[in-house]
């Protein structure tokens, strides 16, 4: 579904991603690990197409189509949806209205909100005064209305209490496994996700198929996400960096 080829991205005059390649296959849930500042969020923001994330080289392909320089809304139309870590405040825009327009009239914001304990937030301005966990619930609510094919989730579990994480995890699971057609033009029923996680907690709720470890703006390693997580827990990210350097040294020596 998503192919990232040799992507180099600059933010504010500084290269953040270097020659990064990865693949998210249709029907697969892919997890991104990596220390703070390794470029995980930058990658997601670049895939969504936000300004300020300038692609210097490389390509982003969605179902074979080059979307590298496409406007944000065109990417959304093709089925990409994102849960942001720090979405902007929208003064005067009620969550209810945003959910309604996002759902293009096909959904009832009240019903969706009730399942997420967000009923009281429908008449509030989007993100204003929301706690960390409330922002996550609000983002999931919007994603439910949007129903994307490719979910980009930036740390869905951060700042969320234990009860909420269960609910959120279940919702993410539903979004991935749901039977309804997604919002992508091609309306493929297969969905995919690219999820940033620090703690790996989200793995308790969604079946992750593949994991990537990012260090210094590029992919250091990939493999079975649970095994990767176990390694990271045991050895820390420094080991990933060391490992990557070792591997490239080996390559060079050949």
């Amino acid at each position, binding site marked *: 579904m998503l192919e990232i080829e040799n992507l180099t991205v600059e933010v504010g005059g500084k290269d953040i991603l270097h020659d990064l390649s990865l693949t998210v296959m249709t029907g697969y849930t892919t997890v991104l690990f990596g220390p703070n500042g390794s470029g995980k969020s930058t990658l997601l923001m670049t895939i969504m197409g936000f300004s300020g994330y300038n692609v210097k080289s490389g390509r982003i392909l969605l179902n074979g189509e080059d979307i590298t320089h496409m406007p*944000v*809304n065109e990417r959304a139309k093709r089925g990409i949806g994102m849960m942001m870590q720090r979405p902007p405040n929208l003064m*005067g825009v009620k969550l209810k209205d*945003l959910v309604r327009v996002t759902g293009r009239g096909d959904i009832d914001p009240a019903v969706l909100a009730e399942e997420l304990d967000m009923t009281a937030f429908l008449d509030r301005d989007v993100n204003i005064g929301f706690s960390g966990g409330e922002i996550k619930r609000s983002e999931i609510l919007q994603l439910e209305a949007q129903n994307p094919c490719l979910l980009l989730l930036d740390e869905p579990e951060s700042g969320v209490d234990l009860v909420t994480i269960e609910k959120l995890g279940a919702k993410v699971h539903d979004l991935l496994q749901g039977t309804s057609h997604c919002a992508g033009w091609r309306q493929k029923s297969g969905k995919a996700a690219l999820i940033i996680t620090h703690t790996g907690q989200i793995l308790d709720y969604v079946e992750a198929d593949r994991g990537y470890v990012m260090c210094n703006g590029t992919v250091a390693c990939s493999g079975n996400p649970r095994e990767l997580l176990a390694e990271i827990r045991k050895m820390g990210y420094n080991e990933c960096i060391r490992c990557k350097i070792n591997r490239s040294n080996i390559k060079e020596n050949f």
Partner: protein
Amino acid sequence: MVSNDEKKAKDALKKAAKFGEDIDLDDYNEGSRELSVTGSFEELSDDIKETMMDAGIVPTEKGKAGNFLLMDNTVVHSATIGSGVELMPLSQALKVHDWLKDYMWKAVMPDTDKYTAETYLQNADGYFIRALPGAKVKLPVQTCLLLKNRNSKQYVHNVLIAEEGSDFEVVTGCATSKGVEKGLHLGISEFFLKKNSKLSFTMIHNWSEFIGVRPRSAIVMDEGATFINNYIALKPVKTIQTYPTAFMNGKNGVCRFNSIAVAHPGSMMDLGSRAVLNAPGCRAELISRTITTGGTVIARGQLIGNSPGIKAHLECKGLILSDKGVQIAIPELEARVPDVEMTHEAAVGKIAQDQVEYLMSRGLSEEEAVGMIVRGFLDVGIRGIPDHLKAEIDKALQETDVRGS
């Protein structure tokens, strides 16, 4: 005998206003005082009804405490429908209430500028609205000031009195008949809010790109009085300058000015609101949200704290949606005693790109995203608007063209 006021007015006939471009009053004809009157709003032509509705006035008696319509300089209709409130032309009220003359020109001075002077000397008519002592008037009184004929000069003098303990609501819609290519509106409004009274006053301006507008309003408030002013100007106008002032003379008064305005290409809007807090415990909040899509808008606000123990906040926020548009925010705080709490917040700029893209990431087009943010931005300016107007204003906001030129 020439009264003192009259002499002052005569002397002020050439006196330019402190703000706003100078308008030559001789450029306009006297608006007619002899248009035909009508027995009810329902009898008006469909054209006129439509114009009124665009200014928030519903052409019906149902659900209203009173209806009033001034066309050019003729009171075409005036009827009190509900109880607890009196509504009549000011000229008639002066005959009915001997005491009313003691209120005339006490809040707005005749020699403020040439516009007040001219209105004084023309002995302008307008509406007189009085909520009776203790009356809780549930339904709104609606008044409409309409420019009917081309090149007319309309003078209006309104007096509103909220008697002790009363509570009422007024909606005033100002509009121009379709096809009127030039006109001038001069409007004096004097408000007197007695002890513990409350008035919610909403003014909707729906002039046109050819009309000059110079309202002059002042509100005199006694102890415990509450004044809520909502001002909405979403349609084009040629030039408007207004700076209503609340004089909060009794303790624990509350006043709120909420204004939203859109300056379209060719529009020059100089909008302000001022609260003079003269007694302990008074609170004031002046909030304005302005947008330019190509015109110029000046958002003024002034808080004057003359008494200890007052609290007031002023907010002017402006969005620039066009390279040709100009936004000027001028918030002023003036404190004359130490024990006051006065704050202001002013910001002008373009729409934040991250907000637009956030909405676009949900599938909205750029235009839809901008529209949603702009409507939200304006909506904050009128959070206190009466429920029955909410739907109308929402509709007007939906229809407001926010594309920059």
